[in-house]
C-alpha cells in the first residue's frame, strides 16, 4: 500500500503537468485530494502500528547484490513524518494554484512538487539505508528545481546552486557513511542494523557516524551550513513553506531520530548534537533581527527551530523524545501557515518587506487573525500549541544530565528571542500604525477565501491541538517510542501546575517582550558585524577560491605546449625501463647479447652506426631545411643497410624505397613552405629537449639490449615455425610475404585500411574550404559555428564565467 501511494502521488504530479492546471481551478482541488486521502489512510494506520501487529513492511528488490532494496517500513516515526508530509502537502497543493494563479508553468511546479512529496515520503518510510539515500537525493534535486523556479532571477539561481552544493556534499559524505555502516553491520536494512548490538562501538562505525552527521547537519541547515536556507527563500512561497520549513529540512532531524537508538549512548553523539544544535538555535534566532523580508525572517526562525530539534535529539530521555515530537508537530502547524500568510501578503501587496508594510489588519482581517494565532504559537504563548513545545524544551534543558548551564543559557536565550521576533513580525507587518517615512505598500489584490483556506485549516488544527491532546497522544507515544526504541507513555497537559518550568517560561516571555522593545538596537548591532560573519558570503568566497583552484589545476595539468606534453609521456616511458634494469641484479651481465645471434661488432656495422649518429646530429643542427632533409635521408639509408647485413635484402629494398620517397616528398612540401623564422631554442627549453632526447635514446638502447639479451629470453621465438612451414603449407618461397599475406593477413588488412584512411584524410584536407575567419576568432571557434560580431557579454567576469 505504501508503494502504491508513492506511485499514485507521482502519477498525480505528472498528470497535473499534462492537464495545464493554470486554466482550471478544479484540478488544484483534485490534486490536493490525493495527498489528503493518503493522510486519512495514515491516520487509519495509527491503531494498526500501535497494535501487536507492529510496523507495516513492504519490500521490492532493486539491486540485492549491492544491498539496495526498496524496503518500506511504517513505524511510529515514519507515521508521524508521513502525516506531516501528506497533510501539509495537501494544503500546499491546494494553496499553490491560488498563489501561482495563471502562471503557465504551474503544471511544471506541481509535477516537481509531487515529485518532492514522493521522495520525502520514501525517505521517511525507507527501511534500507541505500534506499533512504536514493530518496534523499530526490528531495535535493526537486528542491533545487523548486528554488530556481523563477530562474531568470540571479538570486533564485544562486540560492538553488548553494542549496544543492551544500546538501549534495553532505549527501555524498552520508553515502560513504552508510556504506561503511552497512559493511560493518553486514546489512543495509535499518531495522536490523539498529538491532545489531555493539555496532556503535567499532571505530569504523564512529567514522561512519561522523560522515552521516555531516549529511544530516547540511540537510537540516545546522550551523555552519545554515546559510543555504535563507538563500532558498527565492523559491515560490508554497515551496518554501513545504520544503524549507515543514518537511525537507527536517529530513536531517528525521535521520538523527532514526539512528538515535544505535548511537545515542556515545559521548560523540551527545556533544555533537548538543553543541551544533545549540549553536544553530542561537545563530538562527539572533539572525532573525537582521532580516526585513518576512520570508527571510521566517527562514532564520526555522533554522532556530531546527537547532532546537537537533539539540533535543542529543538526549536519550523520554521527555526529550516527547518534546521532539511535539516540537515537530507544533512547528509544522505554526510555521507552515506563517509562510503561507507571507505569501498571501506578498500576493496582495506586492512586497514582503517589513519596512513597507503596516496595518494590514484593516484590509486583510482574516489573514491577520491567522497570522496572530500562528505567530503567538511560535512565541510560545499559552494556551497555543507552541507553548506545549516550549514547555517540553525547557523541561529537558532544566533537567539536562550534562552541560546543564550551557543548555539553560542557550535555551533561555533562544526562547526569549522566539518571543521577540514573533512579536516583531506580527507588530511590524500587521498591527503597527503607518509611518510617513517610507512609501507604504497597499493591498491592491485582496485574497479570496480559497486562497486563505490552506493556512486557515492548518491554524485551526494547531489551535485546537492543545485542547484535544487525548486524540493525538497515541501518535506521540508511537513516534517517541520509535526514537527511543522503547515504549513511551507521554503525559502531556496544558496545565501542569505552578512549577519551575512554568515560571521560567513566563520569565522568558517577559524577557522576550523587553528584547522586542529593544529591537532597533539589536538590528544596529547585527548590521555592524563584519562581513565575514555572513556564512553566505564566505561560501561565495569559497566558490571563487574553488574556481581559482580549478583554473590553476587546468593550467598545471595541461602544460600548455605540445613539447612539454610529449616530454612527460616520453620520460614516463623511461621509468619502467629504469626500474626493470634495477631489478636485474647485475644489468651488465644480464644484458650481454646472445652470442649465437650477435657475433660481436664487425667494423662495417660500427662505421654505419657512427655515420647514422653523425647524420642525426647534422639533421638537428642544420640551418636550412634542405640540409636537414638530406641528412635525414642519410640516417634512413644507413638504417636500411643494417637489413642487408642481417640477411634481409627484400626488406632492405622496401625500406630503401620508403626512404627515397620520404625524402622526395619532404623536399616537395618544404619547398613550398616559408622559411622558419622562429628564434633558436634556448634556456630551459634547450635543457628539456636534451633530457627528452636522452630519454628517448636511452629507451631505444634499453629496448635493443633487452631484446638481444640471451638470459632474458624465456622461450624460443615462434619465428622458426614460419621458416619451416612457409613453403610446405602456405606454398610461398618468400617467408616475409607469406607472413604478410597468409599467416598474419588480418594485420595486413588493417594496415591497408590505415593507408587508405591516410589518403582519404589528405584528400579531405586538400579540399578543405578556405577559411575567412579574422585572426582573433581563430582561437576557440566550435567548428560548425560562425560567430556574429562579439557581443559585450562575451567578456565575462571570472566568477560569472565559472559559476552562477
Amino acid at each position, binding site marked *: 500500500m505504501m508503494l502504491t501511494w508513492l506511485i499514485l502521488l507521482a502519477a498525480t504530479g505528472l498528470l497535473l503537468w499534462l492537464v495545464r492546471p493554470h486554466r482550471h481551478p478544479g484540478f488544484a482541488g483534485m490534486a490536493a485530494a490525493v495527498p489528503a486521502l493518503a493522510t486519512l489512510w495514515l491516520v487509519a494506520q495509527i491503531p494498526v502500528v500501535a497494535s501487536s501487529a507492529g510496523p507495516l513492511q513492504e519490500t521490492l*528488490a532493486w539491486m540485492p*547484490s*549491492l544491498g*539496495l532494496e526498496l524496503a518500506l517500513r511504517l513505524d511510529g516515526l515514519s507515521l508521524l513524518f508521513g502525516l506531516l508530509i501528506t497533510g501539509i502537502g495537501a494544503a500546499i497543493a491546494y494553496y499553490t494554484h491560488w498563489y501561482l494563479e495563471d502562471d503557465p508553468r504551474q503544471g511544471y511546479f506541481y509535477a516537481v512538487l509531487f515529485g518532492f512529496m514522493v521522495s520525502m515520503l520514501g525517505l521517511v518510510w525507507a527501511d534500507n539505508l541505500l534506499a533512504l*539515500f*536514493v530518496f534523499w*537525493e530526490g528531495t535535493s534535486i526537486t528542491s533545487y528545481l523548486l528554488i530556481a523556479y523563477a530562474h*531568470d532571477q*540571479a538570486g533564485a*539561481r544562486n540560492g*538553488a546552486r548553494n542549496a*544543492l*552544493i551544500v546538501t549534495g556534499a553532505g549527501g*555524498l559524505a552520508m*553515502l*560513504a557513511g552508510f556504506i561503511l555502516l552497512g*559493511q560493518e553491520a553486514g546489512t543495509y536494512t535499518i531495522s536490523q542494523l539498529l538491532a545489531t548490538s555493539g555496532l556503535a562501538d567499532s571505530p569504523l562505525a564512529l567514522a561512519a557516524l561522523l560522515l552521516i552527521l555531516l549529511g544530516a547537519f547540511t540537510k537540516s541547515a545546522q550551523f555552519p551550513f545554515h546559510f543555504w536556507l535563507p538563500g532558498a527563500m527565492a523559491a515560490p512561497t508554497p515551496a518554501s513553506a513545504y520544503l524549507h520549513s515543514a518537511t525537507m529540512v527536517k529530513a536531517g532531524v528525521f535521520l538523527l531520530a532514526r539512528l538515535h537508538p544505535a548511537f545515542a549512548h556515545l559521548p560523540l553523539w551527545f556533544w555533537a548534537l548538543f553543541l551544533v544544535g545549540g549553536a544553530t538555535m542561537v545563530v538562527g534566532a539572533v539572525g532573525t533581527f537582521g532580516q526585513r523580508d518576512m520570508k527571510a525572517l521566517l527562514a532564520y526562525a526555522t533554522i532556530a527551530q531546527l537547532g532546537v530539534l537537533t539539540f533535543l535529539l542529543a538526549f536519550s530521555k523520554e521527555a526529550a523524545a516527547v518534546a521532539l515530537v511535539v516540537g515537530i508537530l507544533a512547528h509544522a502547524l505554526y510555521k507552515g501557515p506563517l509562510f503561507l500568510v507571507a505569501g498571501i501578503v506578498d500576493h496582495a501587496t506586492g512586497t514582503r518587506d517589513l519596512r513597507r508594510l503596516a496595518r494590514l489588519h484593516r484590509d486583510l482581517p482574516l489573514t491577520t487573525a491567522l497570522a496572530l494565532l500562528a505567530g503567538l504559537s511560535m512565541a510560545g504563548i499559552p494556551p497555543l500549541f507552541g507553548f506545549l513545545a516550549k514547555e517540553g524544551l525547557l523541561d529537558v534543558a532544566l533537567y539536562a544530565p550534562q552541560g546543564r548551564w550551557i543548555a539553560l543559557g542557550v535555551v533561555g536565550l533562544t526562547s526569549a528571542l522566539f518571543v521577540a521576533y514573533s512579536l516583531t513580525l506580527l507588530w511590524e507587518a500587521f498591527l503597527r500604525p503607518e509611518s510617513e517615512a517610507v512609501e507604504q505598500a497597499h493591498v491592491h489584490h485582496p485574497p479570496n477565501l480559497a486562497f486563505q483556506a490552506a493556512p486557515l485549516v492548518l491554524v485551526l488544527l494547531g489551535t485546537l491541538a492543545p485542547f484535544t491532546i487525548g486524540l493525538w497522544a497515541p501518535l506521540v507515544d508511537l513516534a517517541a517510542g520509535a526514537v527511543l526504541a522503547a515504549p513511551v507513555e507521554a503525559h502531556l497537559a496544558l496545565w501542569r501546575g505552578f512549577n519551575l518550568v512554568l515560571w521560567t517560561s513566563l520569565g522568558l516571555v517577559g524577557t522576550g517582550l523587553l528584547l522586542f522593545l529593544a529591537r532597533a538596537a539589536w538590528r544596529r548591532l547585527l548590521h555592524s558585524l563584519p562581513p565575514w560573519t555572513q556564512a553566505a558570503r564566505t561560501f561565495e568566497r569559497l566558490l571563487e577560491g*574553488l574556481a581559482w583552484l*580549478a583554473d590553476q589545476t*587546468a593550467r598545471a595539468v*595541461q602544460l600548455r605546449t*605540445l613539447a612539454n*606534453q610529449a616530454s*612527460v*609521456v616520453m620520460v*614516463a*616511458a623511461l*621509468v*619502467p*625501463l629504469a626500474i626493470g634494469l634495477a*631489478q636485474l641484479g647485475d644489468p651488465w651481465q644480464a644484458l650481454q647479447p646472445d652470442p649465437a645471434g650477435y657475433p660481436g661488432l664487425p667494423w662495417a656495422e660500427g662505421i654505419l652506426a657512427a655515420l647514422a649518429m653523425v647524420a642525426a646530429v647534422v639533421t638537428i643542427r642544420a640551418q636550412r631545411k634542405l640540409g636537414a632533409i638530406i641528412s635525414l635521408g642519410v640516417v634512413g639509408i644507413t638504417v636500411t643497410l643494417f637489413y642487408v647485413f642481417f640477411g634481409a635484402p627484400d626488406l632492405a629494398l622496401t625500406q630503401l624505397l620508403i626512404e627515397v620517397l620520404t625524402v622526395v616528398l619532404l623536399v616537395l612540401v618544404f619547398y613550398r613552405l616559408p622559411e622558419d623564422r622562429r628564434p633558436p631554442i634556448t634556456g630551459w627549453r634547450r635543457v628539456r629537449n636534451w633530457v627528452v632526447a636522452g630519454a628517448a635514446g636511452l629507451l631505444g638502447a634499453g629496448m635493443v639490449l633487452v631484446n638481444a639479451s640471451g*638470459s632474458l*629470453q*624465456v*622461450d*624460443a*621465438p615462434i619465428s622458426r*615455425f614460419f621458416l*619451416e612451414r612457409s613453403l*610446405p603449407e602456405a606454398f610461398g618461397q618468400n617467408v616475409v610475404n607469406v607472413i604478410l599475406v*597468409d599467416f*598474419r*593477413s*588480418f594485420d595486413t588488412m*588493417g594496415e591497408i585500411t*590505415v593507408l587508405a*584512411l591516410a589518403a*582519404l584524410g589528405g584528400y*579531405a584536407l586538400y*579540399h578543405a574550404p578556405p577559411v575567412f575567419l579574422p585572426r582573433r576568432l581563430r582561437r*576557440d571557434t566550435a*567548428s*560548425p*559555428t*560562425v*560567430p556574429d560580431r*562579439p*557581443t559585450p*557579454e*562575451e567578456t565575462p567576469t571570472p566568477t560569472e564565467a565559472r559559476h552562477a
Partner: protein
Amino acid sequence: MSGFSPNWLVVPVALPLFTGALLLFIGRWGFRRWLWLQRTLGTVALTLNLAVALAVAVETIGQGRRYVLQVGLWDAPFGISVVADGLTAIMLVMGGVVALAVFPYAMATLDYHRERMGFYPLYLVLVMGVNGAFLAGDLFNLYVFFEVLLMASFVLLTVGGQPAQTNSGIHYVVLNLLASIIFLAAAGVAYGTLGTLNMAQMAQRLDMADPSVRTLLAGLLLVGFGSKAALVPFHFWLPTSYHTPPPAVTALFGGLLTKVGIYTLFRSYTLLFPELLVAWQPLLLTLAGVTMVAGALGALAQPTIRRVLSFHIISHVGFMFVGLAVAVDIYRLAPGFGLAAALLYLVHHMIVKTGLIMAGGAVELEMGSGRLASIGGLAARRPLLATLFFLSAISLAGIPPFSGFIGKLSLLQAILDAGHWWVVAAGLVASLLTLINIMRLWQQSFWGRYRRPGRSRVRPLEEPWRRTRVLAPLAGTVLLSLALGLGGERAFGWMQVAAQQTLDREGYIRAVAPHPTIPPLDKLPQKE
C-alpha cells in the same frame, strides 16, 4: 551449441570495413543526391553490427563461454587469434550502441561539406578499428587496430579543415603516435623476450619470465594504454582536441575512444600481469585518484560546454581505472566485484556521456556558441531538449534512479571494502565537483535570460527531420540509462560474469590453446 560459430567474430570487423569501403564508391564521394544511400547503408550496417554484438554477448555472458577464431586456420600462436569473452562482448555491444546512437545525430548536425568528404566511410572504419581492438587476442593485431582507429579518428577530427581543428589534430596525432610507439616498443620487447605476441601464450611465458621483463612490459603498456585511456598524466591529447570537431564527432569520440584504452588496460593487466595488480596497487590507486580529481577540477575551469564535458571524461576514466586497481583486492564482497563495478560504470559512462555530449552539441548549434558566459535561457524555448539534457546530466552526476548512481555506489562499495580511504575521499570530491560542473552547464545554458550570441550553419532543432534525428537518440540514451539504473541487478549480474571470466586467465589460455612448442611437421593437423 546454438549454432553460433566463431566465424561470426569476423563480422564486427569486416562489416563496417566493407560497408565503409562501399560507401566511398557510392556517388563518387557523394553528390548530394547519393547521400541518402550512404546514410541508409550506414545505418543498416551499424544496426547489424549491434545485432551481432548482442548475439556475441548472449553466447559469451549467457552461456559463460569464450569463442576463439584462429584467423586463416593457423593455430595459435602462429596465426592471429580473435577472442571474444564477456568483457569483449560488453565492449562490442556498448560500442555498437554508441555508434548507432550518434549516426543519426551526425546526419542531422553535420554540414554538407563534411558529409561529402567521406564522413560516413570514416565513421564506419572507426567503428571497425574499435571493434577489432576489442576482439584482438594478439598484441600486434591490437596495435594494428589501434592504428586504424587512430588514423580514422585523426581524419574525422580534421575533416572540414578549420584552423582550430587542424591545430588540435596535430596535438592529437603527435601524442597518440607517441603512445603508439611506446606500445610498439612494448610489443617489440614482448617478442624479443617471450618470443610470441599471442596474448594467451604471453601470459603463459610471462610466468617464467624475469621480473624485470614483467616490470618493463607492464610499465610500457601502462604508459601506452594509459595515454589512449587519457589517464592523468598522459591525458593531454584529449582536452586539446575533443571540442574542435563537429559535435557528432565529439560525441562519438567521447563514447568510444578512451574506452578502448580502458579495455586494453583491463585486458592486459588481468591476463598478463595479475600479480602486479597487487604489487603495484598504490601506483594504480594514485593514478586513479589523481585522474578523478584533476579531471573534474580541470573541467570546472573550462569555458565552453563541450570543453567541460570532454575534460570531464578524464575524471570518469579515473573511476573506471580504480575498479581495475581493486579487481583482486576484495574481502567481503563477491570475487570480481571491483571489476564488475568498473564495468557497470563504464557501460553507464558510455551511454550517458555520449548522450550528454550530443545534447550539449545541440545546445551549441542552437545558440551558435558553446561559450557558457554568453548563452542562456534555452529551457523555455526547447523544453524537450532541456528535459533530456537535465536527465542525462543528473545521471552523469550519479543521482538515482539513473545508472550513474548504481555505478558510483558499486564502485564505492568495492573501494571501501578494500579499505582505501583516501581513494574514496577522492571519489567523493570528484563526485561533488561533477555535480557542480553539470549544474554550471545546466544553469548557464538553460536558465536565465535567453541569449543567443551567434548563428550556426545548421540549426538541428528547427527542421522536423533534423529534430527527430537529434532528440530520438538522446531520448534513447536517457531511457537506457534509466533502464540500467532500475534493472541494475540483471546488468550487474552480467558484469559479474564478465568480470569473473576476465579474471580467470587459465580459462582464457585454455580457450586460445596456444601450442606450447613448435609442433613437428607431421603432427600438425592437416589443412583441408
